[in-house]
């Protein structure tokens, strides 16, 4: 269409665009009249098009500057006359007076006056905003072209600044030099104070005033922290609040207990958060929260925790809610919750120590207590009794500890939100008192506890419950530092359980082992597992042997059935099984009766066929035997007269002894010495076996002369023909076969052995390290050794030193001459 027109001319712009022909004054008169209309809310009759065009012309004619100034002036006049006077009319003398700190007005009066003021101000502000946005619409072209060109603030922004200058920063009245802004702050603060005191205030009203302060800036840069809100109000607000809460915290600490304080503090924090959200600005939230936290918590937490009704009180009385509160408060101001942790740890150690002391007291008090009534009783049972008492104390200790643990777990979970750092702190505290040097028996006690449960405790419990018990034991085990000591005890106890068949369930035993494996690693359970393996192999051997015997053909009616356990000497704590005072080499060889001896040899032969080159040592002291005994017709005390058959379950020694009496006429006797000579049973064992056969009232199969509790070498023994048991099966217990707390002597023994084995461990570790490093300084060597052994036990440094010395003597290591620090070299 254009091409067809041929040569075209560019026409100059028509009409108004050209020339300086705008009568500015006239235009301005129109514009300002319209502005007045806008301010008086009569805008709906005005034509946007016309106003825009007028303003556009003016700007196009380069009068933008003049227009800008005039508009500014117009707004200034409007604000400083109409609006300001309207605002000033709102100041009741009441309001002015109260901000000067004079009393004499009730809160209600103050509130009403304050609200009136705020409402007026808010109204003025909203009106101003609406008008200004209309003005800005009309003056859009000026904003876009003129203001951008000469880098002026847009007219809207300018007008907002005018509001700040002409209203907020104007004096409250001719005679009063305080500015409106200050008054506004005071009124808002006053209202907030009323709300804190429980009054209901108009939150929306305050919020809109806050919006106003937020949208105005103190300087021209309009940076966030220069908002009037931040510069003027927030500052005062924080200061006032800080003051308020300082007083409040003092008052509260004096007048209420810790729980109430905590509740109050959390409520205050919540209130302030809520206030920021509904009444003030969200940006203030972290700041005011910090103020409240500082005043109510951080500066007071120590006093709070230490209060009479503080943490200790709460723990003792299971105030879980309050503990939760205090945790919450502490967590707010301190990531590590130092104060609370400290208090909790202290309490745990205190309570733990109490338990320790109680256990010690229990184990020591008992020997003294039964002393007076022990008149007719021998010393043996007395000691026995005390040992039993100790065992009870041990189990009680474990249970107490577990209870304590339960308690704190509960607190930790319910009140401390499963906080991680607190968990470690609790664990540390438990470890502290369990391993406390004043209480060396924890390993033994724990092992005993397991033993007890294995033997009796878990009877009739569901799998779940059993599991819980095992887990508890494992938890305690976790705290124990000297794992090797525990292993030693456990082995010993386990050994008894296995050999005596005392375990309720093999399954549970194995479960326990696998739990320990998870907890402590493979190494730890290696030997324990080997023990179980031995047991299974033994079962196979027994049945194998039984078949073998049957295969021999000649069915001997008097055949003795043999059940046998073949134990690997390295894995089983054999030393603890023999009576302690015998040397290992001189393991007693008692004389078996012929019948037994034959079967024994038969088994040895059978075994050697299977595994050549192994040596079997018979541990008669560990075995037991079932004997059928027939008691002749003898007149009983109750007058009955008949033959009685009993199945006697006795120890192997007991069997040997009883077999002696088989060949003896009823009224014959044997002296202790004679028995000893014939059987070659160690005196100690013999004495104990005789004791159980002849002294214990329910199993008095032999009669001893004289009838005393103790067995002496001169005593004579008869077969008790008149024995009458209530049951067919009678179990003849041998004294001290169960697992008991060790006596002090045994303890020393165990410790010594433990130390010896530790010595080996240390040496092994040292050699391992040195083999790898060839040369190493003393300090480092010690350090690495400690590291290597940490999982098993915590060796003493002096011990390590000794071991090193010994290694040097044996020429595994040598000192490096002339080294600056003590160093060793490995000798291959």
């Amino acid at each position, binding site marked *: 269409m254009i091409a067809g027109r041929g040569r075209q001319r560019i026409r100059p712009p028509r009409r108004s*665009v050209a020339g300086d022909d705008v009568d500015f004054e006239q235009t301005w008169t129109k514009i300002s009249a319209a502005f007045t209309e806008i301010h008086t809310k009569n805008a709906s009759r005005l034509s946007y098009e016309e106003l825009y065009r007028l303003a556009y012309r003016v700007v196009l004619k380069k009068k933008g500057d003049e227009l800008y100034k005039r508009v500014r002036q117009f707004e200034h006049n409007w604000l400083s006359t109409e609006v300001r006077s309207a605002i000033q009319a709102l100041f009741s003398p009441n309001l002015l007076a109260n901000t000067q700190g004079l009393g004499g007005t009730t809160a209600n009066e103050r509130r009403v006056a304050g609200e009136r003021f705020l409402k007026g101000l808010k109204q003025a502000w909203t009106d101003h905003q609406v008008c200004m946005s209309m003005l800005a619409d009309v003056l859009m072209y000026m904003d876009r072209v003129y203001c951008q060109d000469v880098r002026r603030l847009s007219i809207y922004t300018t007008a907002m600044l005018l509001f700040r200058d002409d209203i907020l920063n104007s004096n409250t009245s001719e005679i009063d030099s305080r500015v409106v802004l200050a008054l506004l702050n005071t009124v808002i603060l006053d209202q907030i104070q009323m709300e804190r005191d429980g009054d209901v205030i108009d939150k929306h009203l305050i919020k809109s005033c806050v919006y106003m302060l937020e949208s105005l800036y103190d300087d021209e840069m309009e940076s966030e922290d220069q908002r009037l809100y931040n510069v003027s109000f927030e500052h005062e607000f924080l200061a006032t609040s800080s003051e308020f809460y300082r007083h409040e915290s003092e008052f509260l600490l004096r007048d209420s207990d810790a729980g109430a304080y905590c509740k109050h503090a959390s409520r205050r924090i919540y209130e302030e958060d809520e206030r920021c959200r509904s009444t003030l600005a969200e940006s203030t939230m972290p700041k005011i929260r910090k103020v409240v936290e500082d005043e109510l918590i951080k500066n007071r937490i120590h006093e709070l925790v230490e209060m009479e009704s503080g943490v200790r009180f709460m723990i003792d009385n299971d105030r879980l809610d309050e503990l939760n509160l205090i945790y919450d408060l502490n967590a707010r101001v301190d990531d590590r919750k130092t104060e609370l942790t400290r208090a909790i740890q202290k309490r745990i150690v205190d309570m733990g120590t109490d338990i320790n002391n109680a256990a010690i007291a229990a184990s020591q008090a008992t020997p003294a207590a039964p002393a007076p009534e022990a008149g007719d009783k021998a010393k043996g049972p007395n000691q026995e009794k005390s040992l039993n008492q100790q065992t009870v104390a041990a189990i009680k200790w474990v249970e107490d500890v577990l209870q304590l643990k339960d308690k704190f777990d509960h607190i930790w979970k319910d009140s401390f939100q499963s906080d991680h750092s607190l968990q470690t702190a609790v664990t540390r505290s438990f470890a502290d008192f369990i391993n406390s040097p004043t209480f060396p028996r924890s390993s033994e006690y724990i092992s005993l506890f397991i033993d007890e449960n294995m033997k009796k405790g878990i009877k009739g419990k569901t799998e779940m419950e059993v599991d819980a018990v095992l887990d508890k034991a494992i938890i305690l085990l976790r705290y124990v530092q000297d794992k090797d000591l525990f292993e030693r005890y456990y082995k010993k106890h386990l050994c008894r359980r296995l050999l005596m068949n005392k375990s309720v369930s093999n399954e549970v035993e194995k479960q326990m082992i696998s739990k320990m494996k998870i907890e402590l690693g493979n190494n730890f359970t290696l030997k324990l597992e080997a023990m179980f393996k031995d047991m299974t192999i033994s079962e196979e051997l027994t049945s194998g042997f039984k078949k073998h015997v049957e295969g021999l053909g000649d069915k001997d009616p008097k055949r003795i059935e043999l059940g046998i356990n073949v134990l690997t000497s390295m894995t089983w704590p054999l030393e603890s099984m023999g009576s302690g005072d015998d040397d290992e080499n001189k393991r007693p060889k008692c004389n078996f009766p012929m019948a037994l001896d034959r079967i024994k040899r038969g088994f040895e032969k059978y075994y050697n066929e299977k595994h050549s080159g192994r040596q079997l040592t018979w541990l008669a002291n560990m075995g037991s035997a079932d004997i059928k005994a027939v008691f002749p017709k003898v007149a009983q005390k109750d007058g009955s007269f008949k033959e009685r058959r009993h199945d006697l379950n006795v120890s192997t020694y007991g069997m040997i002894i009883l077999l002696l009496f088989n060949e003896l006429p009823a009224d014959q006797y044997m002296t202790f010495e004679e028995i000893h000579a014939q059987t070659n049973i160690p005196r100690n064992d013999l004495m104990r076996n005789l004791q159980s056969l002849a002294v214990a009232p329910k199993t008095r199969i032999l009669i001893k002369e004289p009838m005393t509790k103790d067995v002496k070498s001169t005593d004579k023994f008869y077969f008790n023909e008149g024995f009458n048991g209530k049951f067919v099966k009678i179990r003849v217990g041998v004294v001290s076969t169960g697992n008991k707390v060790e006596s002090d002597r045994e303890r020393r023994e165990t410790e010594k052995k433990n130390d010896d084995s530790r010595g080996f461990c240390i040496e092994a570790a040292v050699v391992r390290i040195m083999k790898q490093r060839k040369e190493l300084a003393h300090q480092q060597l010690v350090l690495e050794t400690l590291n290597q052994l940490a999982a098993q036990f915590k060796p003493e440094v002096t011990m390590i030193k000794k071991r090193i010395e010994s290694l040097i003597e044996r020429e595994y290591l040598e000192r490096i001459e002339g080294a600056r620090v003590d160093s060793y070299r490995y000798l291959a």
Partner: protein
Amino acid sequence: MDVKKKHEIEAALYKENQQISSGTLKEDNPLDSSENFRIFCEACRRGDLKVCQEMISTGVNINARDRFDYTPLILASLCGHYEVIRLLLENGALCERDTFQGERCLYNALNDRIRNLLLSYDYQKSTNPLQPLAAHITSLLGRDNPKTTDITIEAYGETFHLHKFLLAARSPYFARKLSSAPNTTSWKLPSSIPAASLAVALQYLYFMEVSLRRVTVGLGQEEEAIVLDGIHKISRQLEIPQLFECVTEVSDRRLLRQRRSEELDRGRDQVAAWFRDNILKNKMVVDTEKVKNVQWDRDNSIFADILLRADDDEEEDEPNDSNASPGPSESSTPPVRNTLGPLNGIPIGPMRSRSPSRHRQRRKSTLYPAHKAMLLRSEYFLTMFNSPFKEAHDTPHLHIVTVDCSPAVLETILTFMYTEKTDFGLDIAIDVLFAADQYFIEKLKQRAAIIISTLGNGSTSAVESENPRGEIDIDGDEAVDIYEILRAGWDTQVQRLEEFAARYIAYRLEQYVDEADFAELVKESARRVKARQETDTVELVDDIRYYLSERFRLRFEDSGLEELMDENAEVLANAAEDLSINEGSMHTKEDVQEFVPDIDAQIAAGAIRTLDGEIAGDEFAQDAINYQILLGKIDRLLENLDLDA
């Protein structure tokens, strides 16, 4: 820059050819052997901006190829016409990487500047020129403020607020339906069609890029089938057969783009046709005094919700009709403008002939019915309809809003807002520029500036290549009042016009430099700078100097005589100094002559005169001297005006 390997391009070309021959792909560059296209290509070759612009306006296919397989863009970049290339690219010429023609274009680019320009317009980054229109219409779907919708469709709890005029324009079904009952305010969806399908159809009607995947995401197979079926049904009912095709997935980027651009074109044409048939046909020409009596019902057959009014230019003898009517009266504007100071003596057309076809006693106004929804494209109207002023209130009869321009300009503006089309003549270009500036229609403003600076350039190419000596266009029919253009550029802050004017003046400096108006202009420019306080130079003078050097240096470089130029420059600098001291006395000119080195040439050439009318040595010497003289004149001018530069 990485250029594609030959075999890669050949492979791409082969694939493309296959696709084209199989009909899946439309050829980007069809052969065009029309005369217009030949002229167009020729203009691109020569760098003739004006002809290019004119040809583009006549609607030649900018991406076609001639019988030598050249596209206009390749020609222009091969010949190195930067401005032409920019014009082509701005008008939708394609230069796409990874296509045969695209790579060819890049490969052929004369220099890196052009290559970078081409790359910056790579299709992937640029958008369809219709995209702004489409984006606006799409935005109407979700716009709440101000309320512009006049019909609601409810479907299964979902309510869609829509615009009748758009529905009528886009869907023949709605067109019939609504024309029979224009005041319907709601429409019920057939129950067999799911809401999701309706949403897709509406998105399509509102120029959105619809894709099936977006609709059916998260739906099960059955639901998907239902929705698809619904789309099928609704496209049949609304008679928009392309919808279904649009919804199907296409992975090929080029195909997708082609389809999109076809859709946009179709949509735009529909709207344009509707605009033509309804809005333009319903415009009313009434006496200005009677405008107030015009009353349009809100429920009208073309669903207009506003009337726009433009007044004819006042007749010279019309009396100032005071402030009685607040609208268009130009009371404060003296009707005659040629009495004003700075414009005196500039040869521009006679004022009264501007509207020659309508010669009458009474002043007339033209009223256009329009839709607020489309007017919102201007920020001015957006603000107006959002404000609490009179115009935004609902009244039983439509508001009449005056637009401060002539009816022709208003029509141009409306055409642009409804159809994105911007073909208007140079005669109203400046008015459009001002109106677009006043009403914040950025795109239109740019278009106006482009039209002025290309068409108004007269013979730009001639200026550059054939008129180094600033020979005055002897036909005297200067199409441009360059002062007006420059001032308009300043007033509306269009950099392009400032540059254009500076170059224009530079190439004809002889003509202007002595005029008083020119001095006035320089002064004005200096004032502008002062207000900004950015630099202490006079922008206009700087620009002119730059283009001046370009004008002459081009000559020297072309002749490979740069050394000569330098030599001369030194000598001539003295000459110019003398010149300025002696105010162009005859004596100086003789001096100049003495310095000219090539005396033989002088003799041979006979009389070659400098601007001062004296004889110069040869053409180059003449150029050099002219250059210095012009520079000297500018310096003197600045001195006189007491300006720093």
